[in-house]
């Protein structure tokens, strides 16, 4: 067994385990920290595929920025344990389960259809130079469109924050 396969198994198992902790834990802070750990395992998997840039962005953006804000909000609101909430069957749960099943079937179909043909061959697909070149040549329009979208979101949040409460 090569080193890459060993690393893949270790990172994959720990990533899935932390994902389970995220959705099963009753304590919101434990959930959030498990998710952070999960992002680190994902970053490790990217590194394993020689996608250094993707790996470091995974940590920088998701673990370092987004999850910090999530934890910030959890602590500010001082959310109690979820156990106090009453568990009851609602239409929302039913729809969620339905969508989950559909997604699972899709995954199974994709796995069965591809069966190893879609494996990445290029080794430096995730390097900074490759991604930069692709973004500013082939994908320039979507890139600029996304930046406009983000700008709109920033302006929107500023306007919401500046609104006076009567």
């Amino acid at each position, binding site marked *: 067994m090569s080193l890459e396969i060993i690393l893949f198994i270790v990172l994959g198992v720990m990533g899935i385990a932390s994902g389970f902790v995220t959705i099963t834990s009753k304590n919101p*802070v434990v959930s959030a920290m498990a998710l952070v750990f999960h992002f680190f395992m994902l970053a490790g998997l990217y590194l394993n595929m020689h996608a250094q840039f993707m790996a470091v962005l995974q940590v920088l953006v998701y673990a370092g920025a987004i999850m910090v804000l999530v934890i910030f909000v959890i602590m500010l609101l001082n959310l109690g344990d979820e156990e106090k909430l009453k568990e009851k069957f609602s239409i929302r749960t039913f729809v969620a389960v339905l969508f989950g099943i559909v997604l699972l079937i899709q995954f199974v179909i994709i796995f069965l259809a591809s069966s190893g043909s879609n494996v990445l061959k290029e080794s430096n697909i995730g390097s900074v130079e490759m991604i930069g070149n692709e973004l500013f040549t082939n994908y320039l329009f979507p890139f600029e469109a996304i930046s406009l979208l983000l700008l709109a979101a920033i302006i929107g949040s500023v306007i919401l924050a500046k609104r006076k409460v009567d």
Partner: protein
Amino acid sequence: MSEFLWVIIESTIKAVIILTLIMLVYGALGVYLERKISAWIQNRIGPNRVGPFGLLQPFADVLKLFLKEDLVPTAANPTFHRLAPIITLGVAVAVYAVIPFGDYVTIAGRNIQLGLAPNANIAILFVLAMTSVGVYGITLGGWSSNNKYSLLGALRSTAQMISYELSMGLALVGVLMVAGTLSINQIVIQQSNYHWNIIYQPLGFILFLVAAFAETNRAPFDLPEAEPELVGGYNTEYSGMKFGMFFLAEYANMGTSSAIMVLLYFGGWQTLVPGGWFGFEPGSIGLALLQFVSFFIKIEIMVLFFIWVRWSVPRFRYDQLMNLGWKVLLPLAIANVAGTGIVSLLLK
């Protein structure tokens, strides 16, 4: 497999040496310098009992911390209370994976890099990622203590670090545009013959310096542990070596920020005097030692600056801190990026 084994052995030896250096240079020397310089500035004598000139004082301090009782508040979350200092110190140390301490040495035909992975393609982004992850240690420490002052200190620290991370990253973009690479070792090599980046990026350096003060929670940005308001901030409920780990991480972070500034703006391990004066060949141990010493002299000068500022400047108010971060540093950083872009386009 023997090549793989050799890599593991080499990395382990390097890691042990780097860890020892961090403990000794940043932990021991940093604390000693801080106490001695603060004493000079405040017209006191400072530590002078343990060892010659009080040089062994930091070791006595650490011994005391080890022997202290480790208290965990009853209402605290014990797991996260234990985890928080480990995260803080671990992240502070992890940055050294990508920091080069010198060029290479040739031993028995092998070119050995002075650093764990100094040629990593994404080194600067890795440093930024680790700084942003460092917030978790402080946040969790404050939250898990179940103490109002701790929580407030942690929240302040998080808000402060998130705000200043932006200007820090944008200030770095200027250097990256000049260098055209994310690898720290490449950036250092480009600064040979005293063509230090500070000449090309003076504004970027000042922005990075201010942001680094805020990121390391040092005065005048030490609001997370503002004693008159918050008792001790996020580490109020910590004692013994857990407090020691937070304390050491603070000094390690200060050293890291200094090291990054030296690497990006002051030529990193480029020697202070030309290696040719002593007849050192590239790859020889003599040149490596000279580079190593030059690097640490530069770092210590930056650390002295950090300490000097801490004991000279009063603390900001919280709204002043946020105004400075968002309304002064961020626009200036964006202007710096735009200016660098225009100038490098014109010079092409």
